[in-house]
């Protein structure tokens, strides 16, 4: 078992305690606490949450919004589904605390269409908290109101990207915006907006109750506290695990009883695929950015088949707005198919690597910037396996 083990989200929380405590502070003090805790976003980018709130707090605007990103679409990620199912009130209390800190009275949960069956659960939690005066008008009898609405997505991975999400919330195509301006300055309907991941928001009540120093006791220098990991693939015990930041891949593999492991995909299709030589690396922002997803591949798996699956994903999910991503994902997939048929020259692979690097720099949003990660890491780490395959026989119809 693990030597280091810290459970925050999976430990009990007295509902409303954090809010009761928070309203005895001025909003600025709550922001300071979150800043001091060094909590970082769990949606992928790891942006410091307290700083994000401060930016929204300082941005001029009468109306401000708190948005909970429940679009969870990264392949291999299901931790947010679990939180929405079993810990919905923690999310809502986190949103409400964020609203109090930033000066927002409106919250929106952007729920992916694939999770529509979870909506009744969220509505029930909202109703119960409203009845308990933890949401709605004059919360806890104070001069502070916060409403939460649910907005249903309609099936588009890119809408998890925060600016595409905002476009979608405004009833448009989910095409990412240029940044700046950042959402904290001009977000939903041009108002200052905080977009936070489901999991990020769940940590907030714990930090408000126990204080930033308590949170900082766990984790590494750059990555404090714990993190939920959705673990799937070739393991005996898949599921959602809460692990202290800095846990090594090797420790995770032992925990979930993975055998004969060849490769581990950290951070979903947008993340990187590592080979055995890197299994002792810690899952932390300063080493292997933890993302939310860990997919394990054993020695029987064909890495090219896996890479093809990822590339097909990106070709389908690219919003098509900018050329490096729209054409780049298509070309990378084409290249993988060539490799599969044993028809990709070493020279052409180099051309594809250059293209992948261009995509990382020139794509407009994270989708196109991160799509090459799995391509580059699989090509680099498993070269022997995927290069110079036997030629497939020429198809009659080709």
């Amino acid at each position: 078992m693990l030597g280091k083990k810290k459970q925050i989200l999976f430990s009990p929380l007295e509902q409303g305690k954090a809010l009761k405590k928070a309203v005895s502070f001025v909003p600025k003090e709550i922001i300071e606490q979150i800043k001091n805790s060094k909590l970082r976003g769990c949606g992928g980018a790891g942006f410091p949450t307290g700083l994000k709130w401060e930016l929204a707090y300082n941005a001029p605007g009468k109306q401000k919004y708190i948005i909970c990103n429940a679009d969870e679409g990264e392949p291999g990620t299901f931790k947010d589904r679990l939180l929405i199912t079993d810990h919905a009130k923690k999310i809502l209390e986190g949103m409400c605390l964020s609203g109090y800190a930033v000066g927002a009275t409106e919250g929106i949960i952007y729920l992916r269409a694939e999770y529509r069956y979870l909506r009744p659960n969220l509505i029930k939690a909202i109703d119960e908290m409203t009845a308990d005066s933890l949401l709605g008008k004059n919360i806890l009898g104070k001069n502070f109101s916060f409403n939460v609405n649910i907005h249903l997505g309609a099936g588009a991975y890119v809408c998890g990207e925060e600016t595409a999400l905002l476009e979608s919330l405004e009833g448009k195509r989910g095409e990412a915006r240029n940044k700046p301006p950042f959402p904290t300055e001009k977000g939903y309907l041009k108002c200052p907006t905080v977009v936070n991941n489901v999991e990020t928001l769940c940590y907030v009540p714990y930090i408000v109750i126990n204080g930033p120093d308590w949170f900082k006791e766990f984790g590494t220098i750059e990555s404090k506290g714990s993190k939920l990991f959705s673990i799937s693939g070739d393991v005996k015990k898949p599921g959602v695990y809460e692990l202290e930041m800095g846990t090594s891949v090797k420790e995770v593999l032992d925990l979930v009883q993975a055998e004969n492991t060849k490769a581990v995909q950290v951070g979903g299709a947008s993340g990187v695929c590592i080979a055995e030589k890197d299994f002792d690396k810690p899952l932390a922002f300063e080493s292997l950015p933890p993302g939310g997803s860990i997919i394990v591949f054993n020695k029987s798996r064909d890495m090219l088949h896996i890479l093809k699956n990822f590339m097909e994903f990106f070709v389908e999910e690219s919003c098509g707005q900018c050329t490096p991503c729209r054409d780049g994902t298509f070309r990378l997939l084409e290249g993988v198919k060539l490799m599969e048929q044993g028809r990709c020259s070493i020279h052409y692979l180099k051309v594809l690597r250059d293209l992948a690097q261009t995509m990382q720099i020139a794509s407009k949003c994270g989708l196109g910037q991160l799509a090459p990660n799995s391509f580059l890491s699989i090509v680099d780490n498993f070269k022997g396996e995927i290069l110079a395959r036997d030629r497939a026989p020429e198809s009659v119809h080709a």
Partner: protein
Amino acid sequence: MKLESMNKQVTEEIQKVVEKYAGRREKLLQILEEINDVYGYLNEYVMKEVAKSLCIATSEVYGVATFYSFLNTTPKGKYIIRLCQTISCDLAGKKQIANALRNELGIEFGQTTSDGKFSLEFTNCIGMCNQGPAMLINDEVYYNLDPEKAVEIVKKYQ
């Protein structure tokens, strides 16, 4: 419900939905989702009517309607089966499930049965990766599938 040749009712339905959202432009996606729920898809007439009631261009409505995979612009089956094709479900045997469903329904992915009951589609990760293979049938989620189990579930809808 069929959309063709009942324009008056359709117009009234659209008006009702648009009014519910107070004619706010930013509610377009919600509006289209609700109409999609009622008729199963959105045709040109619907898009024109929605555009008119929100005072925006039809192309804007069309742009949104075609962007999202849960909005349909052609008629679909009463039940849409969406089988996850992403990596964890792939490793867990989605191909066998796909084959079983194909054989059972006698259609390919992307098609609808002739009685209008089922459409068969692939979708990307639906967040059930630890219990794959997984699929959605409309708003219900099914997981830990094997070929027989998948077919049994589909039969329940028949």
